[in-house]
């Protein structure tokens, strides 16, 4: 009899070798453990072991063999046992349970099961502690360290334990909250949460005093006290995360707020000018939709998952990516996700920042742990879901030490019409059943929406962490997209993200009028959740559907046949009321109008910030080739190949411009997928952000982001009339007037450049408080704010395969730089690494830029361009080196041609709106005709040798391509 199955891989696993390398210790072995809630007899033990292991590569440990098997490796002396905390999603355990149930059928009934990682080590106790810190996250896992002898003893005495969720047995009785209390006590409810009977607090609601007073007034008008569920629901619905109060607030003299004036305003202006059908669905749905061809719509959405990723990088990132996948599933009647995008803004993984959320305790996770966790989270989420992840980038800056930024995006595709009806239109009708499909509800992510709107401080709740289960979502997604949608079996659909059911049902009910929900019907992961917890839980992998009663049985059967749970939890009604019941007791009854629009509107003022004068740095004396190597190997320019190769970008067989380009595999600025087998049109994707320019000039920072994101698509071959953009503002301290000034300036630039380029904003999201308030290692209090970051994601249609460009040049090609190079080195990679003298930030002149882009587009369609790279970080110097590395062909660059600026300014300035192109010699005449009156410089040619050479009047400087490639492909330290 035993209650544990422990499996050992005979050969060294990848995880073991990376641990061994990292800790310089060859004596590390990992065991996969499964702890059962009941004992297994010998027969069951053998049978189950066989089901979950492989005879060839693994050994099953038993009481009899454990000593002998393990001592054959070495004399281990310590054991680290890592288990999920009770209630945390344990995907492996779920799979094992399914295998056992399927195979043993009814002969083995109810049992609980937990998966465990057991690390055996020979080493000193200090080393063991270090390893355990690197391998586990105390927020979601328990870590036990004990001597190896005790481990053997546990084996003999059968003492391995699974920990179940032990929620106190509690009977819910309707709880009314008295708001007729002092302002101070009222504000405590907002900041710390509702007080329980035992005087403990539930956790922050993120409601300010004014909002609480508004709630008090509403209830005094309807002459009753609010219930706890009502207050929780209002907190979720009114959160900054859900309502974007700052973007919609009156700000200075802008009555309608910056979203209406600048973002939506730009799109409305563009639609008015364009008069075409390009924009299909904007701002109102889970994602923004544009026309792909006459029969298909594509949609795009980019989300951030910053705070969860700071607390649990892997969990935060995986839920970020599978969460934004659901935004596509929830676009219109359900779009199929066809590509993921990512952008990470991280602290230097090689540095130790040693930050604490509380004085001398509660440390922030190390920067490299955060970086690695985020990268793997998106890998597992994307790869397991079968959605290619071709497009992304990573940027490093110390100011992300307190909060990493994790942008996750998804592109989806949906036929324009389904059974004759427009697919992007949906409407929950009165009488429709509310169906919840997918995963079950637990305590995951409770207070996520209210808390991601607040700064990260000691009171940040731990249950705000969620873990994704991409397979459950994949199963659910397949049923929706392949079976239910095309038969028109439901009238509306949306995803459960921030705010859970309270948010998804609340939003959807706007279509019908109102809703009645019976919370006791919601399937739970474990018993003992309070109704308010069920209502706001952010457990993942769930969609909410509005299903006409006649179809309900069919829909549920279809889900069940594919191993997916689906449950009736209420119905939509005509009356504009939000009603929630729990075992027949009404615990929420609000007017829909108050629920959605009742929150007090903000009135914001801005003030001009002090701009720090950058100290003059001394330019480090080094040769040109040396500088090129330094820049190429700097973290923000160096190749991100190690991410591209671990993210499956080939699945769905759509990849047409890959993340790694040319024989020399250079990480590209844009990628493209061809989503339909029967249409040669492609979708080009790119993105850009310039947090490094933000503090000096937020207006031009935003201009640069839009220009780069747009330029990269033009360079890739997209049709300029079919490009749309998305805005993701990640700001800091958005209650401070100078930060709001920067925000207003950036938003104004969004309007100006989007209108100039005729690129509508189709979707966007903002995250306004990316600040860390805590302590350094000496116990001194610190605040670290991210630099304001505006990520612009661009999506465009490439009409023909032949329009897609490449970045590799051929022997004899002439090299040209399109656009103007100015002395714009301020805040550049060069100025950070080498130093700078007096210089400016890049400024985008949209007229000049558009002239270049239109001409480029024309020349490319005529086949005049042989290769092209958008010039960005590191300037011309880096662009030409990348071209040489990609094509493995030498180039010669003539430095005499620069005018009025120094060689370094010419080579490393980050002036915007420039493209490096190569042409076949015989195309030059045609090129000149097209580019008449436009700025361009012939800078050299492709020699086909193995060196890049730079010539001026006196000398020739050479660097070998293979050496440049080595610098460019260096590992990022700490990763």
């Amino acid at each position, binding site marked *: 009899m035993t209650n544990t199955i422990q499996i050992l891989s005979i050969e060294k696993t990848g995880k073991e070798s990376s641990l061994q390398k990292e800790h310089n210790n060859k004596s590390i072995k990992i065991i996969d453990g499964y702890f059962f809630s009941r004992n297994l007899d010998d027969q069951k033990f053998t049978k189950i072991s066989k089901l979950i292991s492989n005879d060839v590569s693994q050994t099953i440990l038993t009481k009899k063999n454990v000593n002998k098997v393990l001592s054959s490796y070495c004399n281990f002396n310590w054991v680290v046992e890592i288990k999920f905390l009770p209630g945390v999603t344990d995907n492996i355990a779920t799979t094992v349970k399914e295998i056992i149930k399927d195979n043993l059928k009814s002969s083995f009934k109810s049992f609980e099961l937990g998966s465990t990682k057991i690390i055996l080590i020979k080493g000193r106790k200090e080393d063991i502690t270090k390893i355990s810190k690197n391998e586990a996250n105390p927020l979601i896992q328990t870590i036990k360290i004990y001597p190896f002898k005790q481990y053997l003893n546990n084996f003999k005495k059968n003492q391995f334990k699974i920990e179940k969720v032990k929620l106190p047995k509690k009977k819910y009785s309707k709880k009314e909250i008295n708001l007729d209390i002092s302002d101070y006590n009222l504000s405590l409810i907002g900041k710390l949460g509702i007080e329980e009977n035992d005087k403990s607090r539930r956790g922050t609601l993120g409601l300010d005093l004014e909002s609480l007073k508004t709630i008090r007034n509403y209830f005094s008008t309807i002459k009753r006290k609010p219930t706890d569920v009502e207050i929780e629901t209002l907190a979720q619905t009114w959160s900054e995360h859900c309502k974007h109060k700052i973007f919609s607030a009156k700000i200075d003299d802008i009555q309608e707020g910056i979203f209406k004036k600048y973002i939506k305003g730009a799109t409305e202006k563009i639609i008015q000018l364009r008069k075409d059908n390009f924009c299909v669905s904007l701002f109102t749905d889970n994602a923004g939709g544009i026309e792909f061809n006459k029969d298909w719509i594509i949609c795009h959405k980019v989300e951030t998952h910053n705070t969860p990723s700071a607390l649990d990088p892997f969990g935060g990132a995986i839920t970020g990516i599978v969460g934004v996948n659901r935004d596509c599933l929830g676009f219109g009647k359900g779009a199929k996700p066809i590509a993921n995008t990512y952008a990470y803004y991280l602290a230097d993984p090689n540095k130790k920042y040693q930050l604490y959320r509380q004085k001398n305790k509660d440390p922030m996770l190390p920067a490299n742990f955060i970086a690695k966790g985020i990268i793997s989270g998106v890998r597992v989420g994307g790869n397991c879901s079968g959605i290619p992840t071709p497009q992304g980038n990573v940027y490093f800056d110390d100011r992300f030490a307190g909060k990493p930024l994790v942008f996750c995006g998804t592109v989806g595709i949906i036929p324009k019409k389904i059974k004759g009806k427009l697919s992007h239109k949906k409407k929950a009708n009165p009488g429709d059943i509310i169906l919840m499909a997918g995963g079950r509800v637990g305590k995951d992510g409770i207070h996520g929406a209210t808390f991601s709107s607040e700064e990260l401080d000691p009171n940040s709740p731990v249950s705000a962490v969620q873990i994704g289960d*991409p397979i459950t979502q*994949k199963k659910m997604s397949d049923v929706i997209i392949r079976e239910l949608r095309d038969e028109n079996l439901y009238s509306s659909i949306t995803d459960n993200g921030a705010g859970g059911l309270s948010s998804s049902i609340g939003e959807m009910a706007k279509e019908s009028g109102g809703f009645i929900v019976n919370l006791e019907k919601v399937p739970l992961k474990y018993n003992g959740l309070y109704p308010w917890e069920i209502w706001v839980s952010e457990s993942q992998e769930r969609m909410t559907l509005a299903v006409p009663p006649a179809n309900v049985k069919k829909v549920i059967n279809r889900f069940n046949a594919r191993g997916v749970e689906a449950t009736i939890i209420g119905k939509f009604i005509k009356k504009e009321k939000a009603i929630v019941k729990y075992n027949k007791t009404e615990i929420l009854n609000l007017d829909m109008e108050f629920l959605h629009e009742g929150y007090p509107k903000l009135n914001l003022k801005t003030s001009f910030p002090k701009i720090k004068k950058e100290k003059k740095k001394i330019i480090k004396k080094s040769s040109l080739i040396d500088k090129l190597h330094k820049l190429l190997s700097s973290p923000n320019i160096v190749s991100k190949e190690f991410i591209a190769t671990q993210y499956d970008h080939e699945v769905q*067989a759509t990849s047409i411009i890959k993340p790694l380009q040319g024989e020399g595999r250079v990480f590209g600025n844009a990628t493209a997928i061809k989503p339909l087998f029967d249409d040669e049109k492609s979708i080009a994707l790119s993105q850009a952000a310039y947090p490094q320019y933000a503090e000096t000039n937020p207006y031009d920072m935003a201009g640069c982001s839009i220009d780069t994101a747009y330029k990269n698509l033009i360079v890739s071959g997209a049709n300029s009339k079919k490009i749309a953009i998305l805005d993701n503002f990640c700001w800091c301290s958005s209650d401070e007037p100078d930060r709001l000034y920067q925000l207003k300036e950036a938003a104004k630039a969004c309007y100006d450049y989007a209108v100039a380029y005729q690129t509508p904003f189709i979707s966007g999201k903002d995250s306004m408080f990316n600040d860390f308030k805590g302590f350094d290692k000496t116990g001194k209090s610190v605040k670290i704010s991210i630099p304001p970051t505006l990520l612009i994601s661009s999506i465009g249609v490439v009409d023909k395969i032949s329009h897609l460009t490449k970045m590799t040049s051929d022997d004899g090609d002439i090299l040209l730089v399109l656009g103007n190079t100015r002395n714009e080195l301020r805040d550049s990679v060069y100025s950070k690494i080498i130093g700078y003298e007096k210089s400016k930030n890049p400024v985008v002149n949209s007229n000049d830029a558009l002239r270049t882009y239109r001409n480029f587009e024309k020349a490319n369609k005529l086949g005049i361009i042989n290769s092209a790279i958008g010039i960005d970080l590191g300037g011309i110097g880096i662009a030409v080196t990348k071209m040489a590395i990609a094509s493995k062909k030498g180039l010669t660059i003539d430095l005499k041609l620069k005018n009025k600026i120094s060689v370094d300014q010419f080579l490393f300035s980050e002036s915007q709106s420039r493209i490096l192109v190569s042409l076949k010699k015989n195309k030059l005449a045609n090129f000149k005709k097209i580019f008449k009156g436009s700025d361009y410089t012939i800078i050299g040619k492709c020699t086909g040798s193995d060196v890049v050479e730079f010539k001026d009047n006196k000398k020739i400087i050479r660097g070998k391509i293979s050496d440049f490639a080595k610098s460019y492909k260096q590992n990022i330290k700490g990763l």
Partner: protein
Amino acid sequence: MNVLVLSGYGINCENETLHAFEVVGFKGKIVHINDLIQNPKQLNNYQVFAIPGGFSYGDDTGSGNAMAKKILTNLYDQLIDFSLKDKLIIGICNGCQILINLGLVPSLNKKDPEIAMIENKSGSYECRWVDVKVNNNKSPWLKNITILNLPVAHQEGQFMIPINLLKSIKANNLIGLQYINNHKKLAKGQFPFNPNGSKDDIAALTNQNGNVLAMMPHPERAFYHYHVPNWQNNTSKKFGDGYKIFMNAKKFFA
């Protein structure tokens, strides 16, 4: 000519796999494993059984294991039957891992899985293009092919084979594909030519009849010329190398 392409529980390459078969002339259907378990007789309508790539059960308990156990419990006899007829079976990537876990390949000792698919030597997921050479020309899937340029995308692509079994695999000529380097010679385990460290550079195995092929690379992702990296330098061909595998299936029944 009909092909059944399996789906469900995290398999995710079914659409492009079916498309490849359709283009070369098959009629086909994507069938959810639960539907197949409900009605296994439908297998009689098909000549080809394809298990596409994906992440069935999220690779938990080892890639391909959980799905193999589901098939073992519910469909094993029918699948063995299928393999003994003049029919074809292909498992690609996760499909390959499932076939190996089922023991349908190499199927020298008919009872248990004889091989394990273990984690790549690099310890990380590898999505990259590789060159493979055909070793076993007698398999209908691989006839008249010499070298293929195909992408791999997997975390567990290393074939772990006991020495004695490897000997008989070689003696029976069951190695289907092997990774080669840029000089068209065996990669000899060298990364990135051999992306996972697989012994003897094995990228695919067949059963003794050659009608069952378990391959780690993805032919359906190298189907059209524009799938191939840097295709802009060579736009003369319509198809990529993966096409040849599907054409061979068609020729087998022609």
